[in-house]
């Protein structure tokens, strides 16, 4: 497939505006500024682009919720928090092709009528934040940002806002709280950000990869974009493969590429010729799939149908040396550590589960622990304030469902069977 999102990555000085312009950069913005904003939104709708941040919400539809009243202040927030373990796709766009993101943001802002945008970037991405600042400065200088962009009358300022190391701040409303200088905890919805978001104003929040798709949709057309991959969730997608494979890394492939192909062809198969045990298809919140399940099309619909999810497209591969109790413990520890503390089931439940998993892992399991874990999953799931707590349960349930005997073995024998 022709690369769209990673096409510049690998070019010398790929982050410079000159390189970007030489590859036809900012032409889509020029085109968009001559278009009617409604037409842009329609085009993005037609392209079938679905949010790449994890939830897979149709992007054009999200934009269309923004009130049309021109007197209202509106904002765009780019979600560059990339906190989901196993996910590292946004980083490469930010570091190696920042102008692709900026162009996408400029077009989106124009479409929704925002004159101010924020890039909320995770604190650890210090280098990326610097790259973005440099790129923004270049764009201002060349007139792609700032007042009256390219004589169109449209003005835009973009600010980089660095996070402080909380996974929850990737959740869109916690992200807004954080930008406002408040404690990073999710807000209750409704009201949805499209009506009352940042500083109470209509706001669109989109993932980096989502926004990076926008210039191509404008320049190549909605139909072209929609023709890539499955009809229901089309487009190019960056899969980040990590774990026990021979060639971990980022692979831009059509949405719907079979998981087996990603693991065995693109990522070069399992290291040391070992056997595949399980794959997490979309970041740690996504329930794992076993060897038998990997002939699956990697797209939002199919994975959801299979009881897992595409999430952020972070593929974590585990071979047969992996202890599932340990993996579950580490993943669960992540969730309890990152639980924001707002709601009871997630705050207390994930902490409790982590304590049990830790004991199991360290050989201090007790009879009944597995049933207790299953019970706690049921007590948390569907009752949390935001999806973080549910994510923790889905991950653990995935492991328990497929590898229950390993947990039981830990509980009964105080050691690992792998």
């Amino acid at each position, binding site marked *: 497939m022709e690369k769209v999102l990673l096409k510049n990555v690998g070019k010398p000085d790929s982050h410079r505006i000159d390189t970007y312009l030489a590859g036809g950069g900012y032409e889509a913005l020029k085109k968009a500024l001559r278009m009617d904003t409604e037409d842009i939104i329609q085009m993005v709708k037609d392209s079938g682009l679905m949010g790449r941040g994890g939830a897979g919400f149709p992007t054009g539809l999200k934009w269309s919720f923004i009130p049309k009243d021109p007197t209202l202040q509106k904002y765009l927030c780019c979600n560059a928090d990339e906190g989901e373990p196993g996910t590292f796709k946004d980083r490469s766009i930010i570091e190696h092709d920042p102008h692709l993101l900026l162009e996408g943001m400029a077009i989106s802002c124009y479409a929704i009528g925002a004159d101010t945008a924020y890039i909320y970037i995770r604190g650890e991405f210090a280098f990326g934040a610097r790259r973005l600042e440099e790129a923004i400065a270049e764009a201002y200088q060349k007139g792609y940002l700032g007042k009256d962009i390219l004589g169109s009358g449209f003005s835009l300022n973009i600010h980089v806002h660095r996070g402080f190391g*909380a996974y929850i701040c990737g959740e869109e409303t916690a992200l807004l709280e954080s930008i406002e200088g408040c*404690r990073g905890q999710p807000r*209750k919805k409704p009201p949805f950000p499209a009506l009352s978001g940042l500083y109470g104003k209509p706001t669109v929040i989109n993932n980096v990869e989502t926004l990076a798709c926008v210039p191509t949709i404008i320049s190549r057309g909605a139909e072209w974009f929609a023709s890539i991959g499955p009809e229901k969730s089309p487009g190019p997608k960056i899969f980040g493969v990590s774990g026990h494979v021979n060639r971990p890394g980022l692979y831009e492939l059509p949405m719907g590429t079979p998981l087996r192909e990603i693991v065995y062809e693109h990522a070069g198969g399992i290291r040391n010729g070992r056997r595949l045990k399980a794959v997490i298809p979309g970041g740690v919140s996504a329930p794992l799939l076993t060897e038998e399940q990997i002939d699956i099309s990697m797209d939002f619909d199919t994975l959801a149908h299979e009881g897992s999810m595409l999430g952020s497209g972070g593929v974590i591969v585990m071979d047969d040396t992996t202890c599932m109790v340990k993996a579950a413990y580490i993943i669960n520890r992540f969730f*309890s*550590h*990152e*639980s*924001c*503390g*707002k*709601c*009871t*089931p997630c*705050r*207390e*439940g*994930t*902490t*409790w589960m982590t*304590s*049990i998993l830790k*004991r199991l892992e360290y050989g201090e399991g*007790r009879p009944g622990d597995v049933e*207790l874990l299953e*019970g706690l999953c049921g*007590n*948390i799931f*569907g*009752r*949390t*304030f935001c999806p973080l707590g549910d994510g923790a349960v889905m991950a653990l349930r995935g492991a328990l469902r497929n590898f229950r005997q390993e947990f039981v073995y830990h509980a009964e024998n105080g050691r690992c069977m792998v």
Partner: protein
Amino acid sequence: MGDRETGVVTLKVNGKEITVREGTLILDAAREAGCHIPTFCYQATLSGVGSCRMCLVEIEGQRKLQPSCVTPVMSGMEVKTESESVISARQAMLEFLLSNHALDCPVCDKGGECELQNMVYTYGPRKGRYAEVKIRHHEKDYVLSPVIVKNSNRCVQCMRCVRVCGEVVGRGVLGAIGRGAHQEETSFLRSYLDCDHDGMCIEVCPVGCFMRRPYRYRARPWDLRGSRTVCPYCATGCRMTIEERDGEVVRSIAREGEGFNDKMLCARGRFGYDILNSGGEERLTTPLIKKNGMFEPVSWEKALSIIREQFTKADPRRLGGIASAALTNEELYLFQRLVREVLGSGNIDSTSRWDAATTGAFIFATGITGGGVSIYDCMEAETVFVVGGQVSEENPVTDYIIRYVSDSSRKSVLVASTRAMKLDTSAELSLRHLPGRLGALFNGLVLTLYEDNQERLEGIKEIGVLKGRTVTDLAAECGVSEADLRALCARLESSGSISMVVGTDLLRFREGISGLRLLGDALRALGKVLKILPVLDRCNQRGAWDMGVHPLFGPDYRKVERAGLGCDGMLDQAMDGAMDALYVVGEDVVNMYPDRTFAEEALSRVGFLVVQDVSLTDTARMAHLVLPGAYPGEKEGTFTNQEGRVQHISRLLEPPGQARVDLEIIEAVGSSIVHGFSDGTPQTVFDEIRREVSMYRDAAFSGGSPDGWLVKKSARRLEGFELIEEKKVSLDADPEHPYFLVTGNHIFLSGSLSRRSGILNELVREAVVEISEEAAGELGVIDGQTVSVSGRGFDATYSVRIRKGTPREVVFIAENFEDKAANRFYKRGDVVPRVKITA
């Protein structure tokens, strides 16, 4: 479903169909349908967060359970509050909350009245499965303020403390530190609090995290005996219950649903209860008679016979009475009967701070005779204009109600005051005017309205007074920018309904009342729905007026045949040696009269001075005869708050020693002169009030609604106060004394009553002078530094407190420091004393 237009929604709760207002929360709808849903984070007066997940309910057709405390009803909804999944969710939440909970109930203050305990008892799993190490935030309880101590290991993370501090109290000094299970609600890094110390955080905490420091480990709730009363510290009139154990009052508490103030109290109300325990030397326990300059105990019989002798031989015109506006309605009513009927004198007053003509005009202008106005009704208006006082400090709970109602319903609040005020942050527009210049401010507003609406206002003839004035010069006169004044006026003009919350500055500065009346007339002429809420400081000031403790009108604002003298007049007459006898009940004239030296001199010339009080105040020290009275917690009766709300207070303790309830004393004095004067029980006196005061005709003495009862419109018209002459307050430059002194109540204190509370005094260790940032800059002083303040004739040292937003030339000293009494800065007739400050 056609409910749209009607604004009501029909839904089913557990199969039962009910109809509620659109926008109602499922939680409230269910309660209306008789189905109780348990909650932790929900509090009616706070913003909804939906975080504790206790209130989850099942909604037909929705995959997930929904939090009923933040989800509004929709037409046709079918809600289940007792389905299997709901019940299991509740049990799960409780099991989770207990998992890291300290479970030290046997030593916890909250044990026995803890929401978590009660909830687990009602809904909880019978058995806990948690068998891991618990997270502990800290080992020992830690102290957050002189009145607050904290144990975070019991927390259920409901954030009520944080929200109440920000949304109701308006301080926002609490927040959360840590994340996830390590989250802890506390002050900034657990530092010592510099805040309002009102303990709202304690009251809303469902468990035993925030605790009253003076009460900790003192009692278990089931050992306490309580009685319902009203806070005596300001006329907001908060309902509360005071509770004693073994004869000692150990706490006061306000509970949801037990009064209009729900859980709200300020520092005074919540912690000033210990005056009731201030027995010992401070408290008067027997009548005293002065012999050779020394007090000696004397029996009641003897005391009463001396009084009878002195009072009956005096010329009624040379005789008078002053009764504090902190007495009950029954006491005040009987007192005026005593003075008028028994002693035959018209000289009577309920304050030593304000003059009689001014109070009369104030009553007229604020429409007090028109009946009670609930503060919540006032808050229904589109715009609330707070003017003429320092509500945030004088009447803290009035401030809370204005804040939380306006912030949650996006009302526009306008503030005009002489000093910076906490309410500023909730105000759409907030401006500072010069002290003693409310008249110019009101007139400026009237003139601006007139410019825009000449025809409609032509009918108000008093506007003529303003002919020849301009908005520009009126704005300059009150020290407000013309643009601000016009902006304020524009807000008023664009609102269909306006409530004015008017403080006692009009009484203090003796001006602005005609202006207020004119503004009221103008706004009404423009078709505005106008409500006025007077904000008063003494707890029963409104009752005192209703009862006719005033030289110019009797009970029910009945015109008196011959006007008597008010406090001012009586002191004048005493100065001339023409006061034979004066009976003062509960009022500390020496400390409150604006010119202490004059008051002392005048009182020393009274032929026979009887002072009845709970302790030996500076005024009592001057008396010939002292009678030991009682605190509110020791008597039964009613108070009428600033809204006109009549509330019953009941008795918790007996007055100590030979001290007696003031009503009984007044009755005894009366009966000693006229046989059968009254039987002196609160109930019969109240019945008499109901007969004599039309506003109280339908009032109930006790029982009735927990919200009390609002007085009705008086059947009479208050006459003679339509127009009063106001002297212009002089603010001429005085280079020697460049600052204007403003006085009033300290936020933690009220009059001289609260000075006897050990707990409150701990909150204010030293006398403070509040100055602006600019003045601090000029003087080169910092917060906490000692400065000397000198006026014409008095100087003293005070600790500096810098107040951002107060105008440069205004300084404030509270009236509550007896040793450095602010009234010493006043010369008689002074309204705005000038002072100098030296570092």
